[in-house]
């Protein structure tokens, strides 16, 4: 199984990177960009073949390591290899 995990900053948490990207885009002349938020994208290759078990593993990873729930949210999709 492959898990594709996205970690994003919670709403309301300052995102200096996103803001800087937005400014840079407009300096490049790319207009009509209302908002940019930067997060992390993590791809994990799991030995697990059952969907439920994979889900449980990914949840644990996200909670214990990949995301800090004080400022971040996570979301993911599972995909059979």
């Amino acid at each position: 199984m492959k898990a594709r995990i996205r970690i994003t900053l919670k709403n309301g948490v300052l995102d200096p990177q996103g803001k800087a990207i937005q400014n840079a885009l407009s300096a490049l002349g790319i207009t009509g960009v209302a908002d940019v938020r930067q997060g992390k994208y993590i791809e994990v290759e799991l030995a697990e073949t059952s969907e439920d078990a994979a889900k449980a593993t990914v949840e644990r990873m996200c909670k214990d390591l990949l995301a800090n729930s004080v400022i971040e949210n996570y979301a993911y999709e599972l995909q059979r290899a």
Partner: protein
Amino acid sequence: MDAKAESRFEITPEIVAEHGLTPAEYQRLLKILGREPSFTELGIFSVMWSEHCSYKSSRVWLRTLPTTGKQVIQGPGENAGVVDLGDGDAVIFKMESHNHPSYIEPYQGAATGVGGIMRDVFTMGARPVANLNALRFGAPEHPKTRHLVDGVVSGIGGYGNCVGVPTVGGETNFDKGYNNNILVNAMCAGLARTDKIFYSAAKGVGLPVIYVGSKTGRDGIHGATMASAEFDDKSDEKRPTVQVGDPFTEKLLIEACLELMAKDVIIAIQDMGAAGLTSSSCEMADKGGVGIHLDLDHVPQRETGMTAYEMMLSESQERMLIILKPGSEPEAEAIFKKWGLDFAVVGETTDTGRMIVTHRGQVEADIPVTTLANSAPVYERPWYPITPPKMILPEWVPAPNAILETLKAMMSGPALASRRWIWEQYDHMVMGDTVQRPGGDAAVVRVHGTQKGLAVVCDVTPRYVAADPVMGTKQAVVETWRNLTAVGADPLAITDNMNFANPERPEVMGQFVGSVKGMAEACRVLDYPVVSGNVSLYNETNGVGIPPTPAIGGVGLVPDVSRMADIKLKRDSDLLILVGR
């Protein structure tokens, strides 16, 4: 919560308690106002009366510290202390804790701690030139320690490196007493000219109040009260929002503020630290003996639908409040625009003596300034002196059989092992004036463009303080003195960061009192006054407190850096001499 909901909010005893106010404190508030507070007013009082802002448990004792001397230009009471370096040069410095946020989000907590202390220093007109940090972590084998060390160290580096101020020293200890309550104390020293020092008194009526820096968001609301509230098991999940720092904006803010300071237009300036807009505006007005009117409609906002309560309590980082000479707004605005920073006129000083906050045409707060600034309760908390344990005489301790092995074991243990792995993650050379790098007794940075050197160091051994608060703290002060002397500096003054557990326990208060007494005596004897400092209480989880940790930060002057001393052995067969008793 939208504005309408806010006005409907009824102030129940639960809400009062959630704001960290005791019933007696709430009664005091009612008496001051002569009526029920609005929700915004309750928030304002709660942050102003928090331990963090009001020093209500420590104030009576801090007054006993020696804070004057012929070298002192400004002692405690401003954003940072100021000491004379001769030839019109001054050093501005302070230390501050960011303990609780760093435990919850080590990277951001430590980073914003560094950002906050630098703002305290450049607010007064100094260019920050040296950062230090005093760190205490739990036992190395504790499951959380590695993660916390990693986060804290990279957060400190991440912020300081980006801003471009060298991190030149600090100290790091591990002790199980900090397992659930790490300490992150950040110190910053900056250089200014004595005729270009800026203070926070908003003297004058009808002056524009200017907001500059980043936009305001809902960051760290209740942060100031959190920093003073004891932890419990639930804090892991309660997880109040911590602020995210933006060192890039801080760098721009430093450059913009210094550029503005070079003009003759600033009457007063203060950073928005803990309790943000509330404490900065109130303190500036109080010191200037004026009233202040804030119109929150003009506050640059990052989020939509922010209430007056949220804006007054927000702890968004990288913001400053400035009182300008009238008419100079366009000149100031041009500078901040050039650096890509927000600039807004958010109010003016008045002759009403009141702090009036309006939002969308409504008066959200109307409080007498002096009362708000000075009415915080002052507690003389019960304490008893700590009896030091019996002295252990050297002859009672059996000598180790393998001295060399023992020495090796000690040197490689977590207490004494080299901290190179930490300071190599900090840019300690940027600015091109670090003439004594970390690893020695004290670090030395040159006063830019001169041959003078500023020596900086921080020290404390909590074990000693726990055994004997008076002697242990004297020892810490004296150790900074020795470290400064060892590089060839004349020690000048100190800052301190008093990290203790719950002051409502008499033995903790006893540690605190003993520590202040020891510091006062050592400083008096050495003519080494305390010019700034910070107190962090309630460092306690589930009733278990941290070891008493009064971190001391010392600064000294090296008259000529070409004659500085360092710890490097220079040549074979030089003599080693042991001095002292």
